[in-house]
């Protein structure tokens, strides 16, 4: 499912940093070492945080961290805090098939990244350069 092209106002909202109290928190799992919170304030940061990895990446030789975010919380956060209901709907549909977190991580990352690029195109270089905070 494609996300509708946003309006300028919507694009600005989607690219904005949220207020400190409205951040979304993910978890970095370092297998066999510990868990750490990862605090993100924009869709862009979430898109960078998520990784496109497979189960094989967590095998004995690779020692990768797992960057986890709760998808249900993410959908709620995008819709209610960021204010991008179109994007929230697309992510919600994507995760609705019940696949495991890691099997969806790359796809969710791609959707978020696409949305960020889409918004940047709508705003154009002059608007994004002004800063949206």
């Amino acid at each position, binding site marked *: 499912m494609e996300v509708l092209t946003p309006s300028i106002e919507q694009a600005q909202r989607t690219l904005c940093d949220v207020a400190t109290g409205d951040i979304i928190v993910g978890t970095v799992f*370092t297998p066999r070492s510990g868990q750490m919170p990862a605090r993100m304030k924009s869709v862009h940061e979430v898109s960078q945080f998520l990784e496109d990895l497979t189960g094989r990446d967590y095998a004995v030789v690779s020692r990768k961290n797992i960057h986890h975010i709760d998808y249900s919380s993410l959908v709620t956060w995008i819709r209610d805090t960021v204010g991008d209901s179109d994007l929230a709907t697309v992510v919600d549909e994507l995760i609705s098939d019940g696949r495991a977190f890691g099997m969806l991580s790359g796809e969710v990352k791609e959707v978020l990244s696409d949305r960020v690029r889409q918004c940047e195109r709508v705003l154009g270089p002059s608007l994004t350069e002004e800063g949206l905070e």
Partner: protein
Amino acid sequence: MANGYIGKILTIDLTTQEVGEIETAKYESWGGGEGMAAAIYWDLAEDKTLTDGTDPRNIIQIMTSPLTGTFAPSAGGRVRVSYVGLWGWPVGYLTGSLIGGRLGSMIKFAGWDGVVITGKSETPVWINVIQDKVTFENATDLWDLDTWETQEFIWSDVMERELGEWNYLGTGRDDGRTTQRPAIITTGPSAEKYGPWSALIHDAGQAAGQGGSGGVFASKNLKALSIYGTGGVEIADPTGLMEARQWVRGFSASGNLDDLKTTAMSVPMGSSQGVAAVGYPEGMKARVHGCSGCIRNCKGRTERKMGNESRCLDFLWYSSFDMAAHKGAKTDAVLVGCDQVQRLGINSYPMMSTVLWLKALYENGILGVGKQIESSLPYDLIGEEEFAVALTEAIAYNLDIGADLALGLWQCATKWGRLEEDVASGWLPLQASGYVHHYDARHETEWGWGNLFQERDHNMHDFNYFVFWAPTIWGLMGMEPEVSAERMAEIISSKMVPFNDDPNLIDHSDEGIYSDSMIKLVRWHTYYQKYYKESLVFCDYTYADFINPYGENMEGVTPKAEEWLTEAVTAKGEKFEDGIALGRKIYNLERAIWTLQGRHRDTEVYGEYNYNPSAAPFGLATYEAPYTVPMRIDGEWVYKSTNSRSLDKVKVEDFKTRYYAAEGWDETNGWPTRATLEELGLDYIADELESYGKLGA
């Protein structure tokens, strides 16, 4: 008979500068390490009720095991440091910390099974042990040096020649020569200023971290201990030891480089070398590094000499902040944070919780310039190198809020009037005994129970890898579990002698965490820890090895490895269950000491956040990450996430009552009883507890 022991323990009285010996044979029945140290403490302590770790009567013991200095894999390079600590709540209990590297083996090579340090020096000193010769050196000019500078100074002072050249430790031809450097354990700069945080550091990043070991050193005007030796360790069956080592190696990644298993079940023996690399920024080159005689070599030395020999929380304390500040990338900030704690000799374990707590206070307008808690640290630069340096130096040099933090976290929170509120909310997650949350007692309850009934975060991963990490990774990544929950329960239970007739030991269901089976698991875990991990000093990163991808039917090396390796060294005919029984004895001895120090059922309590399902264990984190564990539901074993679960206070108290009963302790106060102590051959301890009015009924 050659049995892994050297035969003598070095005693050093800092007050009189007298040096002596204890015959190891007198304490051999306690194994080594923690067991031996507790027994010696019982005999030597002038006042067993002592709870102030800075009191000159405190005793520091650095004890090896018969396996130290041998080729026993993931055991030969380890040693345990024991002392009355500075961090614990409500008082400093007899505690300690294990340390790797070369220290333990060098103590043995110098001709000692351990070092016992008493008294207090009038002036700053460092102790120079070369073989059997001990001298007291002036440390006035070293007192403000960091741990790396101190070691560089002592190396240059002690060694005749550069590293790698032959150094002669005597005047005669056969007095011994070595290409090694002395092994040094040292505090950071003026460690008395941040005693509870102060770790003893050896080489670049080996640390005895918890409990303020460096602060205890500093309180005695002791900067460092340097040990240099060229001897060896005679063992009972060298061929048997090498056979056992090769057998164990067959279960490790390093023994299977042509057949590396691509498995999430790479725990713990099976995991690969250079695990520390997970802490480095992407693409950083390093070579693997390990403690003496290790087959796993989990640490690293890097191309840019940053993060050397560090791992786990040394990196983790700052890496999430680094990544948050740098669009998900790890940068040099994590390495700067890592090296700061190593150079300053700061225990890295509470650092992450500290930053999260400060961040929560700052972002909620409680901490900062002109705020309720005045501070001008650069909180807007959390994640950058500047903040890592500013915070660690604030603690070490008592700058800004550092003087308060340096007291210890629960002490600092008390001073700020925030203890109750912030522990209840989880902003400051003090799980038990004043130690911060490591793994979550609400989910991985065996970790929590172990902490509740002991004096510190026990930091024992024996079950953690299997019951949490592997199922959680499988679940997160949609991988087919390599062993079913039922098979995992079967394998692990079968290895937990003498409780191996109970198939439900690892049941982490809502009922299972309070069950009699869980009581057995907690007891076994503590006994195993006390003897095999902390007395014989088998490394926590490797043992216990319950499940292993290289094992037949996925079975790991425990308990065969522990029994075989110990027997090859000592030839005592000791069975694995004998070791578990000895672990129980050591635990009861320590329990008696803690009882005299004031420990009571009423002090064995969880931080309030554990009873609150919405409390965030780490500052502002939401609590939605999966915590997948094995459990039995309606007779079927499954892996299931337990997130949003909290503990039930009534059930916790009931568990305590039944646990004390199972241990043979007084249910009303948790004190050992005469019957139990006499059963363990500890009649003399029962007598002394009785004389203090602290014998359980």
